[in-house]
Every structure is written in C-alpha cells, then in structure tokens.
C-alpha cells in the first residue's frame, strides 16, 4: 500500500482506540457524573494484560482480550471501592494516582513487563494470512468493535438503568431518596467503563505488536477528555465523533506546528500540547454541550389513547 493509504489506516485504527476510550469516559462522566483522570492507566492495564497473556503465557489472542476486560473491571472496582461514598474530588485524585502507579509498575517490574524496553512481538490476529492487508483489516475490525460497544452503551443509555445512572449524576442525594442504590450504580458503571478502556488497550497492543510504559502518557487522558467534551458529554455518538475530531486536531496541529520555521522539535511538541490544553478549556467554557448535545429521549406515547 502507498504511504498515504497506510497513514489513513493508522488514523482509522488510532481513532478507533480513542473512540473506545471516549466511550468509556462518557459512560461514567456523562452517565453517572464521575471522572476518571487515570484513563491512560486503564488503557495501559489492558494493553499489558493482553500482551502478557499472549506473549508470556502463550494464550490465544481472544483469551488475552478477555483477560484485559476482566483485569480492567477489577482495576475499576478497586479504584472506586474506596471512594464511592465520598465526594467526586476524591475519586479524581485516586484515579490520577492509579495511572501513575501503573506506569511505575510497568517501568520497574522488569521480570514481568521488561521495564522501559517494553514488550514486543505481540501477536496480531491472522497476521500471517493477511500479510500486507493486516493493518487495514485490523482497522476495520476495530471499527466493528467500536460499533458493538457503541450499540451496547446506547442500549444502557436508553434503558431504566441509564435513567437511574443519570439521576445519580444529577443529584446523588435525591436519587437516594428516590430509592436508588447509588453505590451499586456507581461501582458497576465505573467497572464497565474501566473494562472498555482496558479493551482499547488490548486492541492497541495487538495492532501495534509493541507496548511500553512511555506509550501511555497521562496526556492521552487529556485527549479523551477533549474528545468527550467536544463530542458532547452524555451523548454516546458524541464520544465517537469527538474521538475522530481529536485525532484530526492532533494530526493537523502536527503539520501546522512543523510548518512554523526556526523551531526545535521539542518546541513543536510543546506548541501542540499547549493547543490541546487550550482546546479543552475553550470547549468547556464556550461549548460545554459539545457538537452533539445530550438529548432527552421522548416519552413513549401511550397506545391506549382515549378518544377525546
């Protein structure tokens, strides 16, 4: 394939991983009003879980991905367990710490993770059979998984479960007085969300065939917050749209920054990161509802309309 086609495939796949991360964040941020500032940590957790299962333990790829889902959900449970009774600020602090701790472990448990060298040779599904078409096929597969997760989350969103989650987001106390067991809702939602982030990580690893601690920069969490905020907090489709929007933004700033003459590469990178931070603040300030604002599903009209 030509360079441009390869580039496109790379964009589609990366956007798919980001879309999964954005769907993960949207479930808890838009759904239950919780934040996960350690999204990059759960992303890494899933990537390492699946890589270790397939490379070190020789498990099939599907088992690796399933393992990533389980490990992610457990991680989410551990993180929320200690904070769900407390104000949201505490969860924010704990998730930040979680991501850093994951990075520390990945960097230092060399016997397991090979430290900063990372794990290479992660198998990709049907890689030999597909040959040069592997990347394109994998990108399409990623899109299919994004669609599947999108479908499931939309179902949750429109169900009584999603309604109760939203009540928790709007006012925990009133939700409690309305008889909702808010702890259960918060823990479940966060665990599912963490599992989806881990899934994104696992898919990334099998695509890239290599994972290392430095790949999972905290900055990824900012990208995803920007994606969800720009797409529309609380809107499942918005998360996917926002993820591709962020990819577009990231790639265009790459070219734009490179076009400024007389700057060192580190300065290009600095400008891009500044623009990301700036974009997030601008969206939160001037377009908090995003490009696809949250919608209220209309009440189903009663079938037995009495004639008046």
């Amino acid at each position, binding site marked *: 394939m030509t360079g441009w086609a390869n580039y496109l495939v790379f964009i589609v796949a990366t956007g798919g991983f980001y879309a999964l991360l954005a769907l993960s964040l949207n479930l808890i941020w838009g759904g239950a009003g919780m934040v996960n500032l350690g999204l990059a940590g759960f992303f890494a957790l899933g990537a390492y879980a699946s890589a270790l299962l397939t490379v070190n333990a020789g498990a099939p790829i599907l088992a690796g991905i399933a393992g990533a889902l389980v490990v992610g959900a457990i991680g989410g449970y551990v993180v929320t367990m200690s904070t769900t009774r407390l104000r949201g600020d505490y969860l924010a602090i704990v998730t930040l710490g979680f991501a850093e701790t994951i990075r520390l472990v990945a960097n230092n448990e060399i016997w397991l993770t090979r430290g900063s060298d990372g794990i290479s040779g992660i198998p990709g599904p049907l890689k030999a059979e597909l040959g040069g078409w592997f990347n394109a096929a994998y990108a399409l597969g990623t899109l299919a998984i994004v669609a599947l997760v999108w479908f499931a989350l939309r179902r949750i969103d429109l169900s*009584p479960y999603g*309604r*109760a989650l939203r009540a928790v987001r*709007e*006012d925990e106390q*009133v939700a*409690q007085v309305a008889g909702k067991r808010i702890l259960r809702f918060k823990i479940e939602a966060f665990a*599912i969300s963490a599992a989806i982030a881990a899934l994104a990580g696992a898919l990334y690893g099998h695509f890239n065939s290599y994972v290392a601690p430095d790949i999972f920069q905290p900055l990824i969490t900012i990208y995803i917050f920007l994606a969800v905020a720009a797409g529309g907090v609380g809107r499942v489709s918005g998360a996917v749209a926002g993820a591709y929007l962020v990819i577009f933004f990231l790639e265009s700033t790459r070219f734009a920054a490179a076009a400024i003459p007389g700057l060192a590469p580190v300065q290009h990178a600095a400008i891009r990161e500044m623009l990301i931070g700036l974009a997030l603040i601008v969206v939160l300030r001037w377009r908090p509802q995003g490009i696809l604002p949250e919608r*209220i599903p209309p*009440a189903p009209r009663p079938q037995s309309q009495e004639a008046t």
Partner: protein
Amino acid sequence: MKAISDTVPRPHVPQRSEPDALLAIRDVRRAFYGLDVLRGVDLDVRAGSITGLIGPNGAGKTTLFNVVSGLVPPDAGSIRFAGRELAGASPEAISNAGLVRTFQVARGFPRLSVFQHLMLYGREQPGESLAAALFGSAESRRREAELAERAWQIARLLNLERVIDHPAQALSGGQKKLLEIGRALMAEPQLVLLDEPTAGVNPTLKAEIAHHLRALPARGITVLLIEHDMKFIGALCDPVIVMAEGRVLAQGGFEAVRADARVREAYMGVRA
C-alpha cells in the same frame, strides 16, 4: 385528638404512641457542631391524615425531614414507620419502605425530563439491572409499560402533559411544585413528606395543589407537610403540629393550635 395541654412537659417524658400512628417519632435528637437543632422531638402521624408541620424559621422542621428520610442520622431517638424502626436506615431503604420525601427548592434532576422524573420514582424497577439493560427482559418491558402508563396518567392529572418531554430546569416554579407532587404519586408511598409544597406559587395554583393533596389520602397516601401559609394549612391540614426550638410545642386542630398562647408567642404573634 390530643389536647394542647398534653404536649411535652419538661423534663422530657416520651409520649405513648397513638394506636393508629403510621409514623411515630420519639425523642429524636440531633446536634450540628454542638448546636442542638432537634432536642427530643415526639410526634405521631395518623394514617390517612394530612398533617401540617409549622413553626418559626430555625424550629428544626427541615432537619426533622432530613432525619426521617435518612439523609441525616439522628443522634438518639426512635422513628417507627408502619411498625418498622427506621432510625439510622439508609435513604434508599427508607424510600423503598414507603416513606418518600420531596425537597424545598425543587431539587431534583435538572436535565431529566418530566417523564424521566416520574419514571424514576416508580417502585420495583426490574429494568434497573445491567443484564436487563443490555439483553432486554420481558419483565422489564412489562413494568416499563405499566409505569409509563401511570406516568402519563399522573402527568395528565397534574396538567404536565404538555411539558412531559421538557427538562425539569425548563419548568416554571409552579410546574416544578406539581412535578414534586407527581413524583410522590408515582412512588405510591404510604407516607409522603412535602417540604413547602406551595412556596412561591400564585393563589390559583395554590388552590390546585391543595386540591391534588386533598385527594391523596383516598389513594392510600398519608401526608406530612411543612408550610408557612396559614390559610393553606387551615384549609387542608388536620392535625397541625407546631415546632419551636427543636421540640414539638403543640399539636391539635388548627383553631385550637392557633388559640394556644405559647404558639402565639413563639410563632403566630410574630407573623400576624
């Protein structure tokens, strides 16, 4: 009816509960930062009554509601509801036991629609499980349809049909008050605690709210409400309980309470 002379003497001697009391509160105490807000509250709410709770600002009425609904645990005392002890139980357990409260400032879920509000207050929601959400369940669909029908009926009853898909934050003050009553109806509680159901609404709507509230006991819903409008209380509530300084000062018929010298001194004298 208890005569006014029977009200709490000091030092404190807990009252015997009335045989048909749905809610019996005994010697409930609560302090905040060393300040005694509830100093041994005793009161009964008779099943099928519309009981009014009045008293000057700072008497502890809203705190009492917070304690009874489980948002604030009591320091001491007993809260018996339909034969069960509720002191210290969680808000959701109390709500699920059939005791539902509303909030003073029309608190709620600003970005959820009227319909979603009503649906949320339906009891027994098999659809509120992950499995049902993801894979669907016949039971969940059946219950949703039932609740949806009730929600529509209540919306019609309260004239909220037109705004049923509007978010609560877009409603007028009066509509918010009606929605509060709608939530109570939807929950089918045995007892509903209403915190100032007519605060800030015009006289026409006030009459409409009174009309809706008057119909609740016939549906099996007992009402305990906090209110400052004496005309409203006089027309709707029997008995009336007067709180002052963290205690029950008097209870009885509206006229009898109004005639009580201590009540006049603590409350009505100031206002009238």
